[in-house]
């Protein structure tokens, strides 16, 4: 299976070359690859149908206990066949649909990468391998939806899909990690009989919610359904493949795969039944609001996903039979209908039902496929869709409680589906040509109509001969979900059963919907449904997204307002709050005691320095400020002198003098200190500064009271003469023990000196006058305006 999955990725890598060599015919050749993989999986069918399962393991990351392991049972096989079978048709179809697009090669890379990821997803056994493929499908889907990347709508839709499914994927990762931890294994195949212990675990609720978040976002369940209709902005082959038959079913597949582990509880049944049922009913009717073929198909896809979720929630033998049957039914008709919609768009230039009609003459082959798949969607016998509908009703009728409710909901949803199926499959072809098309209606190339035709024939064949797959594929898939084998028997004619009567009711009401669709579409009822459910969650998402951008913009402008002094204030405030708050929280107070001998001249010196600081801070006269500063600096030099640091004192005297000279030289060329900030700002800054000063004094007082580790100092003092033959210990440290540091210091000074020299020698720029500055600013804002427009 590894080879099967990898071969598709290899095909993706080679696709651009093939497109370059063969041009638009490349689709036919590339289509052979998924076809071959389809055959490979198909030949395992007898074995799987017999109740066996295949497991293959390749050591990949042994240290992380993550083998590349694959597991093929009936459920995986069903999906693998859908992915590769429909995939082959789509690859061929895309060759025709995008024949004139200059990036067909790129499209195939993305499409085949998606196919490989999707195939890997359905056959993965290891949880993490599954998750990687799950995310890969989200990523490739993002690229494919945004394939027409020059259009803003496409980019927006792609981003929406990525955020929703990616966010769900994140939740899923959490759920899978919890699940693996609880189950004690990272292989799905080993989890399958651990249902009882997982469901009894306290983490079960968390696992369930996280897994559901992943599955519901991926499979577009309410309230996450909005991304799927938006994803129709992608090219039609993408809609036909990812957003009907495969990727959106990944969530349903996940729930089916974990059904033996997580399913069967009241929580499972209630949640899946409720969300699935509601999604089904809501989107089935929302579909009737649209006149765009692809939008109708998108909403009915959501409807089917809801139905499948609901059936998984019910989880009885009959429900799972219906679920696996409908999965096949839907994949056959929906893929075909999307391709048909693409053909009509291609041939006439429109997908709007109000403009379409009478294409039977111009597009016979497309019509054949379209009518067959459309009628299957409507559930008309003898097509496979009829059987799918019947078994759904059977599942509802077999329920002990809530059965009637499920039946009514299913009938109501299917009524809309009948209407939608007839609208999509019949209306464009029958009747009169309604108006002038932008293009002369013409049949599509064979590569484009062969897909719908094959799927239509498939729907007819399975409808007439359901026994061709019910005992084999469907039964094995059902066994994979339920972990116990039941006989699956499908038939076109069951006799006059309650399900058949429900079908008749559905047809009658569906016919009415079809006949009066024009009026229904614009009725107040449909408007209301659309406003609340169709528009609501998507709008919440959009507003939330842009609200987030707005909010971060506002915060950025406030926090990073370009004012240097505000940045400093924020830094100082953080220092005060974090360090001071930490000290308060830790209860580390300081006792302030003036111990030891204090001499009067020392107090006088300290007072002098304090006064000079106050003068330097308060004055508006730049020369007074410099003088005050110097007084403080010389005061500090005296402190050094008094406490045994003559070297420091000398250096400080020298540097202080130099500083004074430098300041005076430069400052005479600068304007004075102009005005003050507002009293509020000064008060704020003053409080922050005073707080920081108090904080540092407090810290110092605390440190003073601890004992000082003098080992380094003593070592240096002991070795100063004996090792370095120097009497002045400070000098020995600087030039000997830490000589390299001093070297660095000299380098820094040299660099500063060079910097100063260069800055002073730079040619003096012409001062822009005030008027010129304004005009520059004006032209800049003009440019910005033009860009925005």
């Amino acid at each position, binding site marked *: 299976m590894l080879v099967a999955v990898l071969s598709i990725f290899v095909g993706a890598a080679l696709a651009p070359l093939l497109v370059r060599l063969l041009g638009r015919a490349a689709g036919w050749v590339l289509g052979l690859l998924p076809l071959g993989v389809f055959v490979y999986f198909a030949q395992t069918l007898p074995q799987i149908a017999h109740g066996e399962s295949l497991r293959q393991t390749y050591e990949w990351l042994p240290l992380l206990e993550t083998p590349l392991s694959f597991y093929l049972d009936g459920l995986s096989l069903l999906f693998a066949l859908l992915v590769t079978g429909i995939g082959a048709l789509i690859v061929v179809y895309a060759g025709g649909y995008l024949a004139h697009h200059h990036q067909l090669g790129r499209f195939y890379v993305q499409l085949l990468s998606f196919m490989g990821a999707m195939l890997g997803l359905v056959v993965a056994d290891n949880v993490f391998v599954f998750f990687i493929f799950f995310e890969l499908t989200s990523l490739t889907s993002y690229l494919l939806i945004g394939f027409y990347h020059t259009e803003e709508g496409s980019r927006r839709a792609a981003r929406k899909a990525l955020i929703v499914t990616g966010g769900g994927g994140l939740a899923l990762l959490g759920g899978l990690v919890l699940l693996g931890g609880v189950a004690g294994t990272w292989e799905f195949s080993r989890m399958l009989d651990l249902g009882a212990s997982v469901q009894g675990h306290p983490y079960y609720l968390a696992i369930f919610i996280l897994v559901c978040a992943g599955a519901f976002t991926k499979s577009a369940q309410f309230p996450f359904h909005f991304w799927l209709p938006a994803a129709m902005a992608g090219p039609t082959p993408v809609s036909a493949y990812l957003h009907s038959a495969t990727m959106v079913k990944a969530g349903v597949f996940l729930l089916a795969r974990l059904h033996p582990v997580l399913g069967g509880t009241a929580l499972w049944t209630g949640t899946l039944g409720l969300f699935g049922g509601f999604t089904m009913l809501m989107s089935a009717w929302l579909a009737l609001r649209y006149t765009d073929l692809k939008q109708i198909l998108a909403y009915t896809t959501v409807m089917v996903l809801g139905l499948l979720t609901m059936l998984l929630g019910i989880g009885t033998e009959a429900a799972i039979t219906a679920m696996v049957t409908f999965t096949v039914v839907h994949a056959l008709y929906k893929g075909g209908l999307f391709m048909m919609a693409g053909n009509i768009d291609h041939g006439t230039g429109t997908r709007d039902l109000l403009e379409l009609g009478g294409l039977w003459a111009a597009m016979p082959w497309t019509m054949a496929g379209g009518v067959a798949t459309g009628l299957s969607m409507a559930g008309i016998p003898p097509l496979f869709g009829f059987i799918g509908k019947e078994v759904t009703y059977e599942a509802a009728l077999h329920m002990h409680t809530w059965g009637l409710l499920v039946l009514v909901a299913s009938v109501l949803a299917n009524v809309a589906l009948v209407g939608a199926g007839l609208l999509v499959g019949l209306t464009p072809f029958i009747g009169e040509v309604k108006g002038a098309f932008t293009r002369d209606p013409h049949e599509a190339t064979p590569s484009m109509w062969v897909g719908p035709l094959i799927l239509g024939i498939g729907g007819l064949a399975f409808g007439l001969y359901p026994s061709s797959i019910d005992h084999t594929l469907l039964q094995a898939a059902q066994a994979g979900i339920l972990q116990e084998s039941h006989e699956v028997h499908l038939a076109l004619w069951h006799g006059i059963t309650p399900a058949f009567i429900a079908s008749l009711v559905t047809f009658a009401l569906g016919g009415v919907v079809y006949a009066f669709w024009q009026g229904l579409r614009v009725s107040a009822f449909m408007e209301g449904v659309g406003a609340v459910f169709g528009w609501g969650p998507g709008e919440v998402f*959009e507003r939330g997204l842009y609200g987030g*951008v707005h909010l971060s*913009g506002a915060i*950025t402008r406030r926090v990073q*307002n*370009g004012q240097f*002094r505000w940045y400093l204030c924020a830094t*100082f405030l953080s220092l005060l709050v974090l360090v001071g708050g930490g000290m308060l929280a830790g209860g580390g107070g300081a006792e302030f005691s*003036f*111990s030891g*001998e*204090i001499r009067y001249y020392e107090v006088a010196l300290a007072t002098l320095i304090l006064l000079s*600081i*106050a003068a*330097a*801070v308060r004055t508006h006269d730049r020369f007074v*400020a*410099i003088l005050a500063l110097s007084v403080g*600096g010389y005061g*500090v030099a005296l402190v050094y002198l008094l*406490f*045994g640091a*003559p*070297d*420091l004192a000398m*250096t400080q005297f020298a540097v202080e003098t130099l*500083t004074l000279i430098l300041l005076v030289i430069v400052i005479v060329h*600068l*304007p004075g*200190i102009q005005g003050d900030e507002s009293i509020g700002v000064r008060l704020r*800054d*003053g409080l*922050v*500064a005073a707080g*920081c*000063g108090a904080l*540092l*004094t407090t810290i*110092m007082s605390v440190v*003073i009271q601890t004992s000082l580790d*003098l080992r380094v100092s003593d070592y*240096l*003092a002991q070795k*100063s*003469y*004996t090792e370095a033959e120097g*009497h*002045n*210990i*400070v000098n020995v*440290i*600087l030039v000997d023990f830490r000589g390299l540091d*001093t070297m660095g210091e000299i380098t*820094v000074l040299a660099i*500063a*000196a060079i*910097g100063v020299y260069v800055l*002073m020698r730079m040619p003096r720029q012409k*001062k822009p006058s005030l008027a010129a500055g304004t005009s520059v600013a004006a032209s800049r804002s003009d440019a*910005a305006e033009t860009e925005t427009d």
Partner: protein
Amino acid sequence: MEQITAIVSGAMIAGSFYLLMRRSLLRFVIGLILLSNGVNLLIFTMGRLIRTQPPIIPEGAKVPPEPFANPLPQALILTAIVISFGLLAFTLVLVYRHFAAGTSIESDDVRASEPTEPLDVDDQARRLPA
């Protein structure tokens, strides 16, 4: 005595923080000088203060007579004084060149990297679909 230098050092740093936050770049420079003095005093205090006896070994002795001032912080501060002088000279010239190139020495006008024009997000937000 350490308590008193702790207060002086704290006051110096508080004063320098206040000056650093002023609009005038001149006051910023003064704050910078004050800050280096304050921090040097802080390091000096943390090494404890001992009166009169510098860390110098007298002629004929191999170790300095006890008690002697702690030489380690002195070495640190000596480096710091010189480095901060270099920093000051560079900053001062920068301020001067800034003034020479423009019209003010206010820090609010130093914003070549953060222009006052609206951010990109404003543009995006304006294109929000109705």
